[in-house]
């Protein structure tokens, strides 16, 4: 079977379809930008986009996204040379502390802005609150998402 990640096709073995997407991305493909925080769908560190919607890859079996869906990870957002507007906004606001939650936060922001390019403060708040940041960068995350919506 095939799975499409960041516009590239990868093949997966039949017996791997139950494997969680998170570990396939990280340990198999080396796409380590998708982070692990809880393994139980509780923290959002592992958020990727599947057809534009946020999915928690730690509880998503590969089989659930191997049917022609488009999976996007932080590696697909932008490169160091050509950053995605959300990455730029996160840097402009100097949002990260340890940074471990930030891929998940950015994927959430991208999905929010794709569906709603000009979210209100309350909409940002309600959407972004699903992800944890242990370092407590929340104040800056609010500003960063707002800023990205203006780019």
């Amino acid at each position, binding site marked *: 079977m095939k799975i499409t990640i960041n516009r590239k096709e990868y093949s997966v073995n039949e017996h791997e379809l139950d494997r969680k997407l998170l570990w396939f991305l990280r340990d198999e493909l080396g796409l380590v930008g998708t982070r692990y925080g809880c393994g139980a769908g509780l923290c959002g560190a592992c958020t990727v986009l599947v057809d534009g919607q946020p999915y928690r890859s730690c509880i998503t079996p590969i089989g659930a996204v191997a049917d022609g869906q488009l999976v996007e990870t932080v*590696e697909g957002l932008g490169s160091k040379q050509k950053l995605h507007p959300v990455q730029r906004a996160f*840097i402009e606001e100097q949002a*990260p502390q340890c940074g471990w939650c930030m891929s998940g936060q950015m994927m959430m922001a991208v999905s929010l802005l794709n569906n709603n390019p000009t979210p209100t403060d309350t909409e940002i708040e309600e959407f972004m609150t699903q992800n*944890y*940041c242990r*370092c*407590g960068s*929340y104040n800056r995350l609010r500003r960063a998402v707002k800023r990205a919506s203006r780019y």
Partner: protein
Amino acid sequence: MANWKKGRRNFLISAVVIGGSVTAAMQFGLPYLRRKAFDFLSEGGPPGGGTGDNPALWISIDTDNTLHLQVPKVEMGQGVHTALGQIVAEELEVSWERVSVSQGSTLTGPVDSFGTGGSASISGLYLPLRQLTANYRSMLITAVSEEAGMPVQLSKGVFSASGKMIMTLAEATRLDRDWVIPEDDAPLKPASEFKLIGKSVPRVDYLDMLTGIPHYAYDLKSSKQKTYYGAVAKPPKIGAVLENVRTETAKQMQGVIEVIEDGEFVGIIGESRESAWLACDALDIKWQTAETIDQDSLDFALDPNAKDSVVLKKTGDLDFVFSNPNTIRAEYSTPFAATALLEPQSSFAELIENDILRVRTPTQFPNTTASNIAKRLGIEEHKVEVIPTYLGGGFGRRSKTESAIEAAVLAYKTGLPVHVGWRREDEFLHDRFRPPTRHILHGLVEKSGHISGIQHLQASGDVLLSDLPSIAASILGSDFGATRGINVAYEIPSLELRAKRTPLPVPTASWRGLGLLANTFATESFIDELAVSASEDPLSFRIKHLPQGDKIRLRNALQRVGKMADWNRKRPTGTGLGVACCQDYGTVIAQVAEVSVESGDIRVLHIWAVMDCGLAVNPDGAINQVEGNIVWGLGSALHEEITFFDNKPLAQNFDKYPLLRLSETPRIKVELIQSELPPQGVGEPAIGPVPAAVANAVYAASGKRLRSLPLRL
């Protein structure tokens, strides 16, 4: 570069208290010594480490004239790499775009016998590192001047004389000559000429972090060959010991390469992470549990009234307080808390050339980790290289990295490159928790509106003593981590502080700020109660007890935060303001919380904070730290609590241990007072006042005084 003279300066700060203490104890008696030790430890602060005097260990200039700085301090989000980069680039006249910072290891780069913690990195290194760099600059200027036959200046990475470029920094460092460290220190750059220190330059480490480039311990694998995944059996209950193990089932499982048994150590090496975990769970192990641990027995253990508590400070006499009917008495408590760093710990170990075992691990204390590994394997220390990785959160938990030993054993026994990653459940079950505390306070306010006496009796689980040799415990008597923040900044004629150290059967250790949060919660709630008892305004009551002189900085911070919060403006019913402040070593911070209490719910609407941390090398970075501390403090004020049942914490994941969320985060406004002092700590102080400010605001909003964390109406 050749010909470095070595060892001119020495910043050995090790066992000052412990080393010199035994004789002093005999001379002056233990109680005297303990009070002295408390003064020393509560004012001096933890050591930040030194630089040695060889700039080549820290600084190199690439051919493209980029300043490359290798540092021993570990980055965990606190911005230490950025701030150290600013310090060196400033003294070496390099522009910010041309700075890169990387992590040294225990075998390469500068030596750091202490480690990273206690908010001490910048305060400890600020002057030594500037001096080291200034000396280097002066050596380079001398060299280029001699080469050019005339005096030269250095600016923006280029040496020039009368407007003509002579050579670049990169070229100068490559001049073929004997480099001799000057006998006398070169002058430091005057603060009035600073271009980088004190400026909010952007962090140096965001690009890799935000583009998914391997950056953290959990991201690592072998660059040369297939990486294997390890999992090591851990007791399912605290205190359990392995009695025997049957490995047949695990060995047969798919993807299992090897099962390693070594005394009480049983570990799996698997093809994939999941196969290692599965097989590890399938090990048939008989565990022997020692004593039963449950919440009641733990709660019962803490007794602030214990007769053998240690006197930390005693000024004046307190009898008049206890005999006065107007004396206020209050008890406060704080629970166990988890560290819950978002990146679970992991380590990657591999054998490299010369039989060196290289371990990449997220540790705050690389040298200790290296020597623990060497000891465990029975090999020499120089055969182990520990490279600290970028940390997905530190906050004290990474003072011990158990996975480093696990990966080291598996890799050493098999010769395979092995990555061992902990699961979230491991993190909760095998955390080193913030210990619980109990506090009993007595205090009296005179008719004049002044506090005449306070007694604070505190009992806490261990923070630092459990990790120190037992001689330290018997000399100190109390745990100087647990008593952090217990000192009272206010001027009070009679003051007694006592602490009862209470080792507990569950592991307790460093948690952000150590005792600062608990002790400030107790003291600053109590000050509020005293103010209320005397019908005084809590803000001016505090200010009144901070006379001019050395208390002026805290006084200023309080006044300024009062203005920011518009303290005197009346808030609607059900909404209230609370103030709290603390001094943590050289940093002072004051905060006001605005809280609304509605149908049993506490909602924090605003936090204003003013911090004076001396010179902030990177003001925006310092503000980011304050914001983070406020979120941590709010988590503790509103949610965080670990309870034990049947030798286990009830929480195994975030469902039972919720962290503060974005939607619960108030609007936060932070201002810094830039003072003349050199840099002081910023990574922890701001956590201190948060729970007290919120509890005091809850009182103002509802008339309910909440005295234990988390705050529940």
